[in-house]
């Protein structure tokens, strides 16, 4: 991230590898890949100063298609490996790709600790609410009662909402995007790319083979304006094709409610203005029950605070200054010694 912008402007080709892309035709991953490759050149980081780290899953094959450095690690452990990369070299721009199984099932603990430490990296979680690569078992984000190969009678778990969980872990940046909404996804990626600290981005991603249409109820173009609300800092929380509906706090409570402009005397002044620095608000936005409420997208929460890597670096500097460069030889000779 500390990279000086290079003279020759970068293009998406600079971020595309020569490998055949091996997702199923129609998979939402294609669109995410395209958008990432479209947005990256704008960040001014050269491909050789960027590392894409992933776990295991369909989504985790992502690094192979990027002409940056890439590490396709093991199931669930990408956040820990990425932490090691940042600890070793805080000049690299580190991006992480994970799935709802990789990141929230086997890897839930690493994700949580990475976010709470605020390691400076961007984490894209492709949420298709299913295990794709292992051919269709339910995941921690699958709806309750989901019938899959491993749950022929329906799953007995309550699902996790990834953005809520990230907020609960104290993540300094939490956003939501949709695979096929290029504008939204591009905007979110740009913000994530510029964030200092752990930037968590949940992307609703359609798995055409094992969970087709999982998000159609709010991502299909015809319903999207009514069924999603794009959160933008400092702007009123309005939605609908006509931007005639909005969110406000139900007076005297801790709840949000949907209001219609022009109805019951409601005006835009009644609508809540999004404040991405307000964590409880982000939590309520992330939690809104669907379909009574629209699905909140965009940057739900963003604050800057010291990153893990910066804190480590500061300790190194302080130590060097304090110890006055105690040499290894001196260390060996501290304490009681005797000469024969």
């Amino acid at each position, binding site marked *: 991230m500390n990279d000086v912008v290079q003279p020759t402007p970068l293009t998406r080709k600079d971020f595309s*590898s020569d*490998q055949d892309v091996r997702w199923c035709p129609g998979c939402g991953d294609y669109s995410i890949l395209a958008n990432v490759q479209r947005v990256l050149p704008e960040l001014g980081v*050269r*491909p*050789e*100063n*960027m*590392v894409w*780290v992933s776990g*295991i899953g369909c989504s985790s094959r992502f*690094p*192979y298609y*990027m*002409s*940056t*450095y*890439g*590490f*396709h*690690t*093991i199931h669930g*452990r990408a956040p*820990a*490996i*990425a*932490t*090691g*990369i*940042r*600890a*070793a*070299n805080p*000049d*690299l721009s580190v991006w992480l790709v994970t799935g709802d199984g990789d990141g929230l099932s086997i890897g839930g*603990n*690493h994700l949580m*600790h990475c976010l709470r430490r605020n390691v400076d990296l961007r984490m894209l979680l492709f949420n298709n609410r299913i295990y794709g690569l292992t051919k269709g078992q339910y995941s921690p984000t699958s709806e309750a009662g989901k019938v899959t190969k491993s749950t022929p009678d329906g799953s007995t778990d309550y699902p996790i909402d990834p953005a809520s969980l990230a907020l609960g872990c104290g993540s300094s940046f939490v956003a939501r995007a949709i695979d096929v909404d290029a504008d939204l996804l591009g905007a979110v990626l740009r913000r994530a790319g510029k964030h200092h600290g752990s930037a968590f981005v949940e992307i609703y991603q359609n798995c055409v083979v094992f969970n087709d249409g999982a998000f159609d109820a709010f991502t299909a173009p015809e319903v999207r304006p009514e069924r999603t609300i794009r959160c933008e800092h400092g702007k009123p929380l309005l939605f609908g094709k006509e931007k005639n509906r909005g969110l406000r706090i139900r007076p005297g409570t801790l709840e949000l409610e949907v209001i219609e402009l022009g109805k019951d005397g409601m005006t835009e002044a009644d609508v809540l203005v999004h404040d991405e620095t307000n964590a409880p608000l982000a939590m309520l936005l992330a939690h809104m029950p669907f379909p009574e409420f629209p699905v909140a997208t965009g940057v739900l929460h963003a604050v800057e605070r010291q990153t893990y890597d910066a804190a*480590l670096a500061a*300790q*190194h500097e302080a*130590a*060097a200054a*304090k*110890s006055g*460069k*105690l*040499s*290894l*030889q001196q*260390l*060996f*000779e501290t*304490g*009681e*010694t*005797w*000469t*024969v």
Partner: protein
Amino acid sequence: MQVTGDQFTLAAALARNDLATFPDYPAEIRAPVGTTYGVSGFQIHFGADDVFTPGDAPDVLVAMNPAALTTNLRDLKRGGLLIVNSDEFKAANLRKAGYAANPLEDGSLSSWDVLAIDITKLTQAAVASTGLSSKEAARCKNFWTLGLMYWIYGRSLEPTVRWLEAKFAKRPELVAANVQALKAGHAYGETAEISHHRYDVPPAAVQPGKYRNISGNIATAWGLLAAGQLTGLPVVMGAYPITPASDVLHELSRHKALGVTTVQAEDEIAAICVAIGASYAGSLGVTVTSGPGMALKTEALGLAVSTELPLVVVNVQRGGPSTGLPTKTEQADLFQAVYGRNGEAPICVLAAATPADCFAMAIEAARIAVKYMTPVILLTDGYLANGAEPWRVPDVSKLAKIPVTQRTEVEGFHPFVRDPKTLARAWAVPGTPGLTHRIGGIEKDFKSGHISYSPENHELMSRTREAKILGIAEDIPEQGIEVGADHGKLLVLGWGSTYGAIREAVSRCRARGLDVSHAHLRNLHPFPRNLGALLGKFERVLVPEMNLGQLVRLIRSQYLLPAISYTKIQGKPFKVDEIESRIRQELEPGDRPSATNGSSAVHEEP
């Protein structure tokens, strides 16, 4: 107890004795005083000759209460000096220790030379002038006893006085009290009629140089620090606390100024992953753990093998299986180190032989890791970790540099392009222009480094990974002999922390005229290239181990030799006596002495 042990050790060191120590911690953080499981022990062996172990049967035992007596008496040499704090031999304490009658009174200690002293009372009297409460005053009794020991061995009180002054700089009343106790104990020796108990242990003849005491864990940490300097690489340690390995993390975390970064991870999986990530990014990634933590690192170790990244993994072995005996020592993780992964995942395995040897072996592990682009497992154990011995401080500027190549050349690069000699793949570090590439745990093409599912390629890559590790045999020292001839009737082949006991036992047997030699393996996988030939020159090979027979099986399968297994699995090191008896049983078959204490079992056929 540990503090007085350390002070006594220092005094012996300053008197230039050779020495070895063995602290024995209770499993509980602060187990109730007076219970047998709460006994904290410290054993030291020092002398004018080379000392290799903390000793089997001490000449002197200090028992501060009945529990300490019952736990340790069986080790005291018959006729040895037994010092007890008679103040503590009260009904309640006797009961806690399981004594029906007071051993000081029932004659059961008649085989030893008992010195029963009211240490608590004498201490309280000695420090009365400092105004401490009588409870606080009693706490000085360990230093009173240390003073007495100093008198017995003719040691100077000075270093301990200095240490007390530094330690309690902010509490001068404690300095005064402890110094008074120390001096009173010393004076007691002068005045009491015990001069027949005075010993004179002259300095040992050791190589000239500057010395210090060092424990295995500190030596490991310092070896890793040195490896960082010798390779010129920053060291990044990912670790999760676990007994008895945590001190390596603690020590490294104090040395940021020397270029070390420590990350206390959320668990052992994350810890090794942090190290792998760091190595991938061009640092020297290291991780340290013990049994249960090692088990958790299994999957990630496979990733390091598959992606061929340098990595040093230190396993400070402890008693198993599972949680086992966390504060006790064992050598039962060898199989796991050599064989314990899914798939064919060869890894280089080293083992340190003594506390100070941990320093050299940590450097060697790093050397192999970066030269061969491979994880290396360094096995130490609880006994090495906490035990200490004098260490000749090296001249850092004279340690051999470790050359490291991180690739920058673009021409002909792919991530699995190999050095034709070492078979190491290229280390191309993120941030290097022109070398962007992708790696992962899926099989890679030998020629391009891309993912490959080709059958023939998998065979080639599997055999190449194996050949790379086996090839390390050409790059490590030939197996030597520690004591004795390089051929003969019996070779005692050891590995790890049994070094001292085997060495001393073999020396004693040779002194009896027995034809026996000692060889000690530091390279467990691959074995030194001459090992088969060397073993072949002996009629018999005896392999003592603190497990149920692991090295012996590796030797048997590799060389088809009927190596004999001799095992002990008690969470405690071998006694010299036990090994000596076993050797004599092998070489003096007419006259079969059995191992003393009947404590160690023999396991002949693996």
